[in-house]
């Protein structure tokens, strides 16, 4: 994709990673992703962030198309993860910027990561204002949204915020603006990104949004570093969505995530799903053999209840469920009801182990069900009633 002038003198550069499916080694990006970065042509030509290292050629080409032989004066590094700072060392070497601006934690990360000795780094704590000519850039630290070094860069003259990972979505497109794509798909991908990446830092999201409101920042354009950008009324929509995501209000929905050895746990899970569905709860039944943990997490994100299932295996649980629970616990979902289900052969620790995971995630636990050997009609009835009981708990919570 060629550079796109998003405001007079402000360019989207970026790289579209059409083939990306594995995002950061742990999350699925079914629709690819983009690494957005930006160039402001003013008295001081300023580059905001870079792209993943493999797109160094694209970045150079984009810069040359906009600037010709003109040099880059300033670089702003909003976040040091390699998908945004992957070309930083190469940019410094080739363009020799006068200054590199980053947050206090960014400087620390930059030193540790790039081991530079003579880079012209300048630290920009919250409130720092920088004149680049006709325009000003001001910086807002957003520690742990989603890394310690994360910050936002705001340009008051353009009413534009470079939001780095906040408001991002993994979506490789030829379109650049949110109003050019399908809204449902956009929201789904934005929620997927939030659920898998930003979720643990929801309290920071709420504080940051409150700070932006208090500061009275006028925002007419939001430029995240992944996916589509927002303009006009879409900015308020994106902020509203983030508030909604961060508040983690549960919906009338349950996710049953399980693994199974000889289908007994699976059949019990299906009976629970029937009980839930008959009470009007929307249910997702997700077997770990067929679903990636990040896809499960995208469903767990707005569910009111999470039912986890595994048979007992070697006095423990099946490994795909251990993977799922480790991943889920790290993302710290809030406001959930939890319950466990599992079959067993000779020893039956599964439900106890699964319940401990749910308790460790501060879920409101509904006592689980375990069954030895193959479940019969009576067990299925018990599971069906369990589904209804969980549905009642969901209704009491909503």
């Amino acid at each position, binding site marked *: 994709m060629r550079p796109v002038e998003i405001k007079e003198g402000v360019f989207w550069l970026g790289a579209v990673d059409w083939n990306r499916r594995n995002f950061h080694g742990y999350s699925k990006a079914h629709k690819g992703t983009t690494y957005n970065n930006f160039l402001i042509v003013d008295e001081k030509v300023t580059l905001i962030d870079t792209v993943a290292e493999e797109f160094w050629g694209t970045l150079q080409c984009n810069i040359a198309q906009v600037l010709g032989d003109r040099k880059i004066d300033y670089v702003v590094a909003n976040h040091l993860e390699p998908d945004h700072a992957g070309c930083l060392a190469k940019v410094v070497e080739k363009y020799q910027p006068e200054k590199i601006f980053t947050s*206090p*934690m960014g400087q620390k990360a930059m030193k540790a990561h790039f081991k530079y000795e003579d880079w012209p780094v300048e630290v920009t704590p919250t409130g720092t204002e920088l004149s680049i000519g006709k325009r000003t850039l001001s910086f807002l630290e957003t*520690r*742990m949204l989603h890394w*310690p070094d994360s910050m936002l860069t705001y340009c008051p003259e353009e009413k534009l915020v470079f939001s780095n990972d906040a408001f991002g979505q993994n979506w490789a497109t030829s379109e650049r603006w949110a109003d050019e794509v399908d809204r449902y798909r956009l929201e789904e991908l934005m929620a997927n990104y939030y659920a898998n990446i930003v979720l*643990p830092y929801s*309290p*920071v999201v709420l504080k940051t949004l409150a700070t932006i409101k208090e500061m009275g920042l006028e925002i007419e354009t939001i430029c995240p570093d992944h996916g589509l950008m927002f303009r006009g009324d879409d900015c308020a929509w994106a902020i509203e969505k983030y508030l909604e995501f961060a508040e983690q209000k549960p919906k009338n929905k349950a996710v049953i995530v399980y693994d199974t050895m000889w289908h007994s746990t699976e059949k019990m899970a299906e009976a629970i799903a029937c009980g839930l569905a008959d009470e009007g709860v929307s249910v997702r039944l997700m077997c770990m053999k067929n679903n990636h943990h990040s896809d499960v997490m995208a469903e767990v994100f707005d569910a009111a209840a999470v039912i986890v299932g595994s048979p007992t295996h070697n006095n423990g649980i099946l490994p795909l469920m251990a993977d799922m629970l480790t991943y889920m616990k790290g993302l710290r979902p809030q406001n959930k009801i939890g319950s466990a289900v599992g079959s067993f052969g000779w020893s039956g620790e599964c439900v106890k182990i699964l319940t401990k995971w749910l308790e460790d995630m501060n879920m409101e636990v509904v006592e689980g069900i375990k069954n030895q050997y193959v479940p019969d009609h009576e067990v299925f009835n018990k599971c069906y009633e369990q589904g209804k009981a969980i549905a009642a708990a969901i209704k009491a919570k909503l």
Partner: protein
Amino acid sequence: MQKYVCEVCGYVYDPAQGDSDSDIPAGTKFEDLPDDWTCPVCGAGKDSFVPED
């Protein structure tokens, strides 16, 4: 009372404020925080904290 700063994310534990997220009352010294207490911002353990200058 001595404040402690998280070397991972920069959060400052102020004993005068405690940590309401973890039900730590105001006036609790850093040394008296439970061993399994973690940084309310980034989740790092107590050993990631150093006294603030």
